[in-house]
Each structure stands twice: as structure tokens, then as C-alpha cells.
């Protein structure tokens, strides 16, 4: 390669030159997949950058991007990078207050917002963020009468850009030329589980080197299709739908709306796919619910062939062990009758590689997808490491590990058990937070992940939990809450679970039911209920969940080290854990400490042996109003399994 | 002029027989909102059944009695098998279903009794009334006159049945509003079964008369086609309309055949009534006695 493809703007121009007519991005809009080729995108970005330049956007400035995945927001990212500025994608479903810190911290003066909703939120925080001077909107609906001087439509901005470009025809390319690989390319705010979010600074080099390394290992080409449906603010989304798209030149597809993701997924049929475990979980839940409605014969067939898949599917995908002719034939028939159609309705027919990341995935969930022939692999990484640290190599996928290190990434395990990482994609710093930077990145350049783990015999990394969460019960038994929670969450009826036990005598759990699945289950049994809270409190539902809990207990009992941490008591929460209430992060990680504090009365009740407990909680509604929900929750004892019995059963 | 009256009276007498068939339609339409295309097939079926029983050796009254039972069974079965599953369907669907029913009944009739032409003698001679011929020189068939009388009696009976008896009033209520009728406790399903049975009876009478006149053969089913223009003229819901319509159709088509036919090559009897009815429709779509339909939106 003659030219150096070391910044995002150069990658874009390169793509526009070598594959000008291939689709770069599509968006389902007005009923069809509107497409833009690389050359169209390059032209649009140029105009947009000129528009921003005309508005006074300069090297080193930051620009916020807020909204669902929209081509124009992606172009805003590149346009800012062309001018040497720094895009800051934000979680679009956050309430306005959550943004204040970010706007102040990053001194954001420019913002591109998707629609009226986001513009309103920006206007709301403007008094607290006086440096915010320019707000551009993509969708003009409802914004016609907004006369604030800060607000401008995207099309108007483009118009300014065209004018500016005519007046300064060399400006754009000159600015792109000035870009250096070491320049800050993006700021990702990690919400963290405590305190203010931290802005992770990544340079062009960090992101591009890592993205390229991973793409080469997996053989990603310009022919891939990805579906961009996760928040732009998540680095994983950026890596897949932006960085690697520019590196490889493949096409990014934006769904019509968040309601239609499933349909759009099926239409596009991505070949390369990334999603957190919760998405795979939701898909499996749907499969389970819908299969339950099927006729008796179909259900029988489904269960029979899923049994076959469970036995041999993973092995066939791995192509490691020889499989008998009979099993191969059965699997082929199953593929025709069940797995193929299933992949098809899930939109996974064309998938070559799919990753799950961001959270540990339940092994059973993981196995399900692999057994039906979807090449699902775990990915380990963090915002700070430009995502890729470990990936399960093809043919060596083990459900309980996250695979081997990628390319030139180095890992060492500290004496404390904490995983330390050195990678070319390691972040530069936390924005304007040297103290946090120093804590996370030591003098030798090792990043302290805060995760506990170890390498197994095959050099695969195995993650236990957050280092600080892995604890012990009072009697010294190992207590790995996330492990237990994931086991619970595998049941379609359980959406979230929080396990307690650190420094206590026994393990107890709070459970969230999966409303859709339980509602379906209840309807089938003619159990009437008036809403979520009521359904969650039905004795029948308690029985249902108790079965799940006791199933987990049997599994735990089978493992010597964990047998002591079986769930003694549990309750079903009256409301869903919600990022708006701060109980889980926007990437759906449970904030265990916060929950323990917020529901202290419940936790006390769990450990005090009470049979029920009154609770009143504040909730935030979508429109920002607050209210309270109160309920009396029952607490139930679960049967414990004896280790011997479990072993006999196994 | 005398010839004109002769034709006119012949037409009117034939018209009364049309009315009789049309009456079967009206009965069912009034009670269940169904335009029963199978009425013609029922006429054919009834006539064939009577002949069939007679050929098996039954005397005429017994054959008629047996046939009446069969017709009632047929009516009840129709209500069960055809109408009930189709309740709440658009009228046009019900109409098409009765076309299916017509085929079914025709097939059944011929399957049971054979397809050949049978003669049916019900003991009324088809000869001109001599006294009338002597006085006015007009040829009026005795058969026609008696048949017309029978029809008139039947029509009167039905009118009384509808207006004076409890069942009759219930029938009218049903015709006006199914839901409301159900709400005040009128057993819709029994009512329908009764109506179909009565329609079966009317078909039997029509079948006897027409069968005795023209022979019992498949062509009897076409009598029903004659009755359609009668209904259009008279309105589907009116017994009086059926009678007046029958008279108009009978007389006009005879007159047209005799006085107009020669100019166009004859055989216009088959369609003349339709054209009259069509022209009439354009002027007054609801028929002579029908109610004006106001469409609410």
C-alpha cells in the first residue's frame, strides 16, 4: 500500500477510490434499504466537514453524536475526524442529566442530534453547559418552530458546507493531510459501576491497528454486511460498524427503528455480527416462547433435533472430532427441518462470524447457538483496549473460556489473580483524569482490567468475575456471584438476577422475571394478572422460579468448589432493574453494590428469615417523571441439593 | 282484442305460478336474509320425489305426505349444514352457497330418482274451460285456473300465517334485526328451520303444479330463474310484491312473446322478463314494495 492508511479520513478516501461503487452504508428508511456507495459517502462527509468548518469547528474540538444508528451520525463522526476534531458518541436513551458531566468534561460545543427528543434534552442541559453552541438535527420533524439560534438542520449545515467548499476548495484535503495517527480519534465515556463516567481516549492508531489485526485474523472482507443496532456510544459498536467497516470496506446497515431490529436483522442477514449476551438471550427466549405455541408434533420434532444438535452440533462446527455417519445424517436432517429454518428466522443464515462480548455468556446459551450451526464466539476486551484482547479461534471454541489472545496482545495474570493487558490498542488516557489513568495503567504500560481469571492448559483465558466481586462466604466457600447469576439467567423465565453472599453465611438472590416469557406461560395456564408487579408476585410464578433456582442449586452442587454457595433463599423483584434507575448500566451489567444498597430492606429480609417484606421504590419513567411502586414481596426458601446426589445424577 | 285478453289472462295465470315460486324466495329472504338460489332445485326435488314415491306404488296423497316430510327434513338439514356455518357472512357469500346447494340438491334428486322425464298426474285436466270458451271464445285452461286458485289460497294462508300467528310475527322480527330478535329471546335457529321447512312446502306445491303441467324434468329448476325477475320487480321482502311481480312478469312476457316475438325471431320469453326487471331496477333499485335503503357511514 503506497499511501499510509493510518487515519480514519484517509481510510474513507481510500475506500472511495478503490471501491467507489460498493455500498458503504444502508439505512432502512421509507420502506426500503436506502444505500450510499463509498464515493457518495466520501462526498457527503466532505460537505459535512466543510459545513462544520464553516461553523467554526476546529482541530482538537469535540462534537457529540446522539441518536440511534443513522448514517448521518456516522458521517458526523468521520467529518469531525477529517477536521482533526474528536467525536463523542453518547447513549441516546440516557436522561439529559446524565450527559451534563460529559459535556462539561469534554467541553463539547457541537452536537449532532437525531431528532426532536434529543434536541429537547440538549436544550434542557444547555444552562448547565454554556459552552454548547451548536446543535444540528437530522430529522426535522417537530422542530420547525424551534427558533433558538443554536439549532440548525443538517441539510442547512450541508448547504453551508457546499458554500464553504466552493470558497475554500483545498481546505478539506489539507485538513485531512494534517491528521496524524497519534491524534485523538474518539472519546468513549464508560459509565462504570460507580462515580462519574470516564472518557477513554483513543487515537487513530489504537483503533485502526486493533481493528485491522482482528480483521486479518478472521479474514474479514469488503463483502461483509453488519447490522448496526447497538448504541453508537459503545466501543464494540464503533469497532464493528465504523472502524472495521472503514478498514475492510464492508457495508454497515442501519435498522429502521429500534422496534424493527428483528425484522431488519432478518432482511439484511448479516455475515458478521456482534451482540452482547442479552441479545442472544432475548432471541433464545423468543424461540422458546414461540416453540411452546407450536403443535405437539412440531414441538416433539424440535426437541428431538435440538437433542441431536446438543450432542453433535458443536463438534461438527468445530470439525475436530470424527462424527459417526448416523449422527451426521441425523444432523443433516435436523439442519433441514430445524436448524436451518431456525437460523433463517433468527436472521443468522449468512453469519460467518458472530461475537458475543461485553459480558460473560451463559454456557448453555452459548452452546445453543453453536449447536444449530451459528459460529458464535466469545470475545474478551474492554473499552480501554479497543475491544479485542482475546478471541476464540475457529475450531477451538470452549464455552467456558474467552479464547486466546489476539495478535500482538499480551496478557499476564497478576499475583492477585487480576488480568493485566498490554496491547497496541491500549487507550491513551482517561480524558482530563490523570489520577484514574494512573490507577488503570501502570508505569510499564499494563492495563489493570479489574477482572479475575487464569489461563487454562490450552492457553485459553478463563474469566472468573470482576476481581472485586469474587468473594467468599463466611465459612470460606468460594462465591462467584456472576457465575450464579448467569446460570439463573439462562432460564427463559428469568431476565436478571442479583446474588448476594459476600461476607455472609449463605447465598441469596433477587430475581427479575422475563415478562414476555412468563406472561405467555401464565396465559397458557389461565393465570390472570394485572401487570408486571402482580404477575411477579403470583404464587405460581414463584413456584416456576423456584424450580429454576433449585435446578441451579443442583448444578452448583456438582462442582466441589461451588457446592457451598447454593442459593438458600430468593425473592422475585416487583420491578425490572432499569438503567434509568441506575440499577444496571446501559450495557446491562448489574450494579450489585447499588442494588444491595437500594434494596437493603430486602437483603436484610432475605438474611433475617422473614417470610415477606414490604418495599417501596422510586422509579423514573421514560418521560423523566418519577413515581413510586410499592409491594409486599414474598421470600421463599429453595431446596438445596446435596453434592453426593448431584454427582450420582451426573 | 279478444286474443289480447286471452294472452293476458294466460300470462296472468302463469304469473301466479311464478309468484308461487317467488314466494319461496321471499319467505327465506325475509327470515334469514338469504337469497336462496336453490329454491328451483327444491321445486324439482319435490316434484321428483312425489313422482318417485308414486312410481314405487304410493297413491298421490301418500306420496305428497311423504314428500312433505322429506322436504321438511331437507329444510332443517339445510339450516344446519349450510346456514349455520355461514352465519354472519356477507349476503353474497350465502347466495353463492345456495348455488352450491342447488347443485347438490339437483344431483341428489337425479341420483335418487333417475334423470329421465316423468309424467305427473294430479288429477286436474289441462283442457280449456268450456263455459268460458262458449261465452267469450277465449281459450283458458282449466288447469291454469285451478292452479292459480291453489296458489291464491296458499298465498293467503301464508299472509295470514305471517301476520296473525306468533311464529309469523317472530319471523318478521327476525327479518328486521337478527341481533335484536336474539336479544328478546326469539330462538333464531328454530325459526330458520321452520322457514326452510315452509319454503320446502311451498316448493312442493309449486313442484306439483309445474310438474303436472310440464312434466317432471330437470328443466323444472329453470322455473326458479323465472322467479328472479319477479323478485326484482316486487322486492325481495314483500309477499305482495311477489304476487304483483309475478303477475306483471307472467303477463308481460306472454304479451311480448306473442306480439313482439315474431319481429325478432321468437323465443324472447327466456329473457324478456329480465330486461323488464333490469330497466325497472335502474329506476327503482329497491323494487316495487321494497324499502329505500339509506346507507349510513
Amino acid at each position, binding site marked *: 500500500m503506497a499511501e499510509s492508511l493510518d487515519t480514519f479520513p484517509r481510510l474513507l478516501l481510500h475506500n472511495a477510490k478503490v471501491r467507489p461503487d460498493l455500498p458503504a452504508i444502508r439505512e432502512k428508511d421509507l420502506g426500503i*434499504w436506502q444505500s450510499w456507495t463509498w464515493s457518495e459517502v466520501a462526498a457527503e462527509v466532505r460537505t459535512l466537514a466543510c459545513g462544520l468548518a464553516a461553523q467554526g469547528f476546529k482541530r482538537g474540538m469535540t462534537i457529540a453524536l446522539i441518536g440511534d444508528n443513522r448514517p448521518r451520525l456516522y458521517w458526523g463522526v468521520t467529518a469531525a475526524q477529517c477536521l482533526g476534531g474528536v467525536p463523542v458518541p453518547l447513549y441516546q436513551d440516557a436522561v439529559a442529566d446524565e450527559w451534563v458531566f460529559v459535556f462539561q468534561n469534554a467541553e463539547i460545543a457541537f452536537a449532532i442530534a437525531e431528532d426532536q427528543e434529543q434536541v429537547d434534552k440538549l436544550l434542557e442541559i444547555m444552562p448547565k453547559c454554556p459552552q454548547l453552541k451548536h446543535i444540528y438535527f437530522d430529522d426535522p420533524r417537530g422542530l420547525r418552530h424551534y427558533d433558538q439560534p443554536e439549532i440548525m438542520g443538517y441539510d442547512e449545515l450541508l448547504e453551508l458546507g457546499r458554500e464553504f467548499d466552493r470558497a475554500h476548495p483545498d481546505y478539506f484535503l489539507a485538513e485531512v493531510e494534517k491528521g496524524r495517527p497519534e491524534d485523538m480519534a474518539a472519546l468513549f465515556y464508560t459509565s462504570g459501576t460507580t462515580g462519574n463516567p470516564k472518557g477513554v481516549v483513543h487515537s487513530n492508531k489504537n483503533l485502526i491497528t486493533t481493528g485491522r489485526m482482528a480483521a486479518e485474523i478472521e479474514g474479514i472482507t469488503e463483502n461483509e454486511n453488519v447490522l448496526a443496532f447497538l448504541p453508537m456510544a459503545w466501543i464494540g459498536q464503533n469497532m464493528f460498524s465504523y472502524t472495521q467497516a472503514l478498514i475492510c470496506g464492508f457495508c454497515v446497515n442501519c435498522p429502521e427503528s429500534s422496534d424493527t431490529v428483528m425484522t431488519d436483522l432478518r432482511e439484511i442477514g448479516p455475515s458478521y455480527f456482534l451482540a452482547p449476551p442479552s441479545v442472544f438471550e432475548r432471541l433464545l427466549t423468543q424461540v422458546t416462547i414461540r416453540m411452546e405455541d407450536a403443535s405437539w408434533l412440531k414441538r416433539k420434532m424440535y426437541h428431538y433435533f435440538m437433542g441431536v444438535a446438543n450432542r453433535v452440533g458443536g463438534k461438527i462446527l468445530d470439525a475436530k472430532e470424527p462424527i459417526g455417519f448416523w449422527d451426521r445424517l441425523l444432523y443433516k436432517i435436523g439442519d433441514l427441518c430445524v436448524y436451518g429454518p431456525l437460523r433463517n428466522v433468527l436472521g443468522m443464515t449468512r453469519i460467518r462470524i458472530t461475537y458475543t462480548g461485553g459480558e460473560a455468556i451463559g454456557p448453555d446459551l452459548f452452546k445453543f447457538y453453536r449447536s444449530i450451526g451459528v459460529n458464535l464466539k466469545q470475545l474478551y476486551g474492554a473499552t480501554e483496549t479497543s475491544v479485542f484482547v482475546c478471541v476464540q479461534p475457529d475450531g477451538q471454541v470452549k464455552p467456558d473460556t474467552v479464547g486466546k489472545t489476539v495478535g500482538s496482545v499480551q496478557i499476564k495474570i497478576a499475583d492477585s489473580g487480576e488480568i493485566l493487558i498490554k496491547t497496541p490498542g491500549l487507550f491513551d488516557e482517561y480524558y482530563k483524569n490523570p489520577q484514574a489513568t494512573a490507577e488503570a495503567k501502570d508505569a510499564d504500560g499494563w492495563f489493570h482490567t479489574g477482572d479475575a481469571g487464569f489461563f487454562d492448559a490450552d492457553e485459553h483465558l478463563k474469566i472468573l468475575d470482576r476481581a472485586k466481586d469474587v468473594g467468599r462466604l463466611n465459612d470460606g466457600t468460594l462465591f462467584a456471584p456472576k457465575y450464579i447469576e448467569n446460570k439463573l439467567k439462562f432460564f427463559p423465565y428469568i431476565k436478571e438476577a442479583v446474588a448476594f453472599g459476600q461476607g455472609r453465611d449463605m447465598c441469596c438472590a433477587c430475581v427479575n422475571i422475563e415478562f414476555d416469557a412468563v406472561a405467555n406461560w401464565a396465559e397458557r395456564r389461565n393465570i390472570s394478572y394485572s401487570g408486571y408487579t402482580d404477575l411477579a408476585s403470583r404464587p405460581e410464578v414463584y413456584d416456576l422460579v423456584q424450580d429454576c433456582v433449585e435446578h441451579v442449586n443442583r448444578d452448583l452442587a456438582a462442582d466441589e468448589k461451588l457446592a457451598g454457595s447454593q442459593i438458600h433463599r430468593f425473592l422475585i423483584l416487583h420491578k425490572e432493574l432499569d438503567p434509568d434507575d441506575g440499577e444496571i448500566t446501559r450495557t446491562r451489567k448489574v450494579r450489585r453494590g447499588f442494588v444491595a444498597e437500594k434494596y437493603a430492606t430486602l437483603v436484610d429480609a432475605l438474611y433475617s428469615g422473614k417470610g415477606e417484606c414490604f418495599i417501596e421504590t422510586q422509579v423514573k419513567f421514560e418521560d423523566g417523571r418519577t413515581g413510586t411502586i410499592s409491594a409486599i414481596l414474598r421470600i421463599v426458601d429453595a431446596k438445596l441439593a446435596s453434592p453426593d446426589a448431584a454427582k450420582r445424577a451426573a | 282484442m279478444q286474443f289480447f285478453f286471452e294472452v293476458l289472462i294466460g300470462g296472468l295465470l302463469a304469473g301466479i305460478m311464478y309468484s308461487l315460486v317467488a314466494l319461496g324466495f321471499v319467505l327465506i329472504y325475509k327470515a334469514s336474509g338469504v337469497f336462496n338460489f336453490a329454491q328451483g332445485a327444491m321445486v324439482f326435488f319435490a316434484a321428483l320425489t312425489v313422482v318417485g314415491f308414486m312410481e314405487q306404488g304410493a297413491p298421490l296423497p301418500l306420496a305428497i305426505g311423504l314428500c312433505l316430510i322429506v322436504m321438511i327434513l331437507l329444510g332443517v338439514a339445510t339450516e344446519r349444514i349450510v346456514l349455520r356455518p355461514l352465519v354472519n357472512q356477507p349476503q353474497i357469500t350465502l347466495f353463492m352457497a345456495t348455488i352450491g346447494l342447488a347443485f347438490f340438491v339437483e344431483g341428489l334428486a337425479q341420483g335418487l330418482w333417475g334423470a329421465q322425464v316423468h309424467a305427473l298426474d294430479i288429477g286436474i285436466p289441462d283442457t280449456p274451460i268450456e263455459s268460458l270458451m262458449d261465452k267469450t271464445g277465449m281459450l283458458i285452461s282449466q288447469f291454469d285456473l285451478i292452479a292459480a286458485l291453489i296458489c291464491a289460497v296458499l298465498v293467503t294462508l301464508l299472509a295470514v300465517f305471517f301476520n296473525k300467528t306468533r311464529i309469523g310475527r317472530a319471523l318478521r322480527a327476525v327479518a328486521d334485526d337478527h341481533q335484536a330478535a336474539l336479544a328478546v329471546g326469539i330462538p333464531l335457529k328454530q325459526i330458520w328451520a321452520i322457514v326452510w321447512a315452509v319454503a320446502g312446502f311451498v316448493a312442493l306445491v309449486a313442484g306439483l303444479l309445474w310438474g303436472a303441467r310440464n312434466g317432471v324434468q330437470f328443466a323444472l329448476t329453470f322455473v326458479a330463474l323465472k322467479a328472479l325477475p319477479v323478485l326484482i320487480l316486487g322486492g325481495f321482502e314483500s309477499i305482495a310484491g311477489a304476487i304483483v311481480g309475478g303477475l306483471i312478469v307472467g303477463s308481460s312476457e306472454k304479451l311480448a312473446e306473442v306480439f313482439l316475438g315474431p319481429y325478432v325471431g321468437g323465443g324472447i320469453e327466456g329473457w324478456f322478463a329480465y330486461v323488464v326487471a333490469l330497466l325497472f331496477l335502474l329506476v327503482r333499485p329497491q323494487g316495487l314494495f321494497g324499502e329505500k335503503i339509506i346507507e349510513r357511514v
Partner: protein
Amino acid sequence: MLYRETGQFKTSYAADQQIFPLRQDRIGVVATLLVAFIVVPLVANEYWLEAILIPFLVFSLAALGLNILTGYAGQLSLGTAAFMAVGAFGAYNFELRLEWMPILGSFALGGVCAAFVGILFGLPSLRIKGFYLAVATLAAQFFVVWALTHFNWFSNYSASGVITAQRIEIFGFYFLTGQSKYLLVLAIVTLLALAAKNMVRSETGRAWMAVRDFDVAAAVIGIPVMRTKLLAFAVSSFYCGVAGALYAYAYLGTVEPDGFNLDLSFRILFMIIIGGVGSILGSFLGAAFIVLFPILLNRFAEPFANAIGIDLPSGMSSNLELIIFGGLIIFFLAVEPLGLARLWQVAKEKLRLWPFPH
């Protein structure tokens, strides 16, 4: 189950609105056409071509015509056979009286004649609906047959109106064998079916369906109700007319007006009820059913009856046919008013969602 829709996305409205948006369907249709155009003529014998396939195609076309009027525009007609008769006699007279007229032109003009007659008898539809209209179309049925019988000019003064269709000749090629006639009919039917599909998926078809479903609402959004109804009568009658011409020229060779009787009209009505009201595919399925069923009945009823020891009287199978057709009509109207086409659609839907039920 066989459908793999994943990845079939549309980037233009043209792609989204094509007749068969699913690739699997397109493959299926192309395969069917290949079989119909190439394999069938090669393997089918004269009996199959002349006695089964040609009438099947001709009736499909007539059913398609009726379906346009009844299924799409919601106007029930009992006069289909009359419009076919007009087409047949129209084509005959054009061919007879205009020497230079190519045969395809005669077919088309026969259709046009039928269209005009259709408009004439469709006029009452402007004032009346439902079975009143059905009765009005009966007038067409009786009047047309009468007129063709009694005005000898139409049949070139032959006895009782019988006409013998001229030979079909296109550019010097004579269509005499079953094979060639089959191919000609197939080509015409395919093109007309495509045209019908195009109409029903555009504004014309939407206007028909709007008038069918709710005429007041249709008028209020600016659909000219009268014109729409009359157009439906015209197009429908055109199709029936062409079908009638093919019925005379490619199927029977010799026809008389009485052959286009009410019974034929009913038969075609049954085709669309059983095949599927408001469905192009249904017209073909219904025609296939009605054409094949009596043949199968004839072939199997007697041996079957003999096998179980019953002696079927002669003519029984035709009565049986009446009974079964009648019963089926009632059955379909009650259980599946949208006919075989709907069953096909449901099956397809199931296959697309497989293994899920919904």
C-alpha cells in the same frame, strides 16, 4: 421450511414491489414456466393436451376474467359464459368477414366485443349491488345466448347457430396439433395473466378492491366508483371473451350458442370459489380442480364402486359430480372462503415461519 429469506433485502421500491419478492418463489415460477413450455409439450400425449391441458388453460383464463370482476371488484356475475360466447362469435365473425385480419387480432377484437357487452350489462351495477346485480347479469346470460341463436348473421346463417372455427394460422404456420395449440394458448394465457397481475397490483387493482371493500370510502378518497366498476366489467369481459375465442378455436373447434349456457357460467364461478376469490393463482387452481375432478371421478368412481360391490347406475357419476361440487362449494364458503389459493398461502406462510407457528 424451504424458504430462506434472510438476506433478501430490497434497496428500491421496484424490487420491493415485484410480483414475486422472494427469490425462492421466483425460482419456483421460472421452473413452472419451463416445465409448462418445454417439458409438457414434449412428454404429454394428444389426449392430455387436447382434453385436459387446453381446456384447463382456457377455463383458467375465463376464471381469471371472472375473478377480476367478482374477486377483485366485488361484483358477482352469473353471465360469464355469455361473455365467452360474445368473444367466440366475435372472433369468428372478424375472421370470417375481414380476410386480412390476423387470427390474434380476431381473438383480441372478440375480447373487445365482449368488453363492450360487459360494459352494457355492467351499467346496472352503478345502481344496484349484490345479488340484485347477479340477477342482472343473468339477463346478459339469457339475452346473449338468445341473440346469437336467433340472429343467424352471427353464425353465418348456419342451423341453430353452430359455428365451426377457422383454422388458426399465424405467419403461415398452422396450429393443428394439440401440441402447437397448447403452446399458443399457454402463451396467450401467460401474457394475459401477467397483465392481470400488473393491473391488480397497481392503481387499477387497488381501486377495484377499494370499491369492493367499501365503496363509500373509495368515493371519498377520490376513486371514481362508476368508472372503476365499468372498467372491471370491461376488463373482465375482455378476458372472458378471449377465453371464449380460445374455447372455440383451440379447444372445441365447433360451438353453438347453447354451449355457453348458465351451467358453464356456474362452472366458472365454482372455479373461483374453490380456487380462491381475489387471487390470480386461485383462478388456475380452481380451473385445474374443476377440469380434473370429473375426469378423476369418472375414472375412479366406477372401479371403486365395483370393488366394494355397488352397481352404479349409468349417469351416476355426473350426478355424483353435481353433489360433490355443490357440497364443496358450501364447504369452501363456510370453511375457507378464500379457497385453495388461501390454503396455499397459509402453507407458504407456515413454511416461511417454520418451525414457529406464528
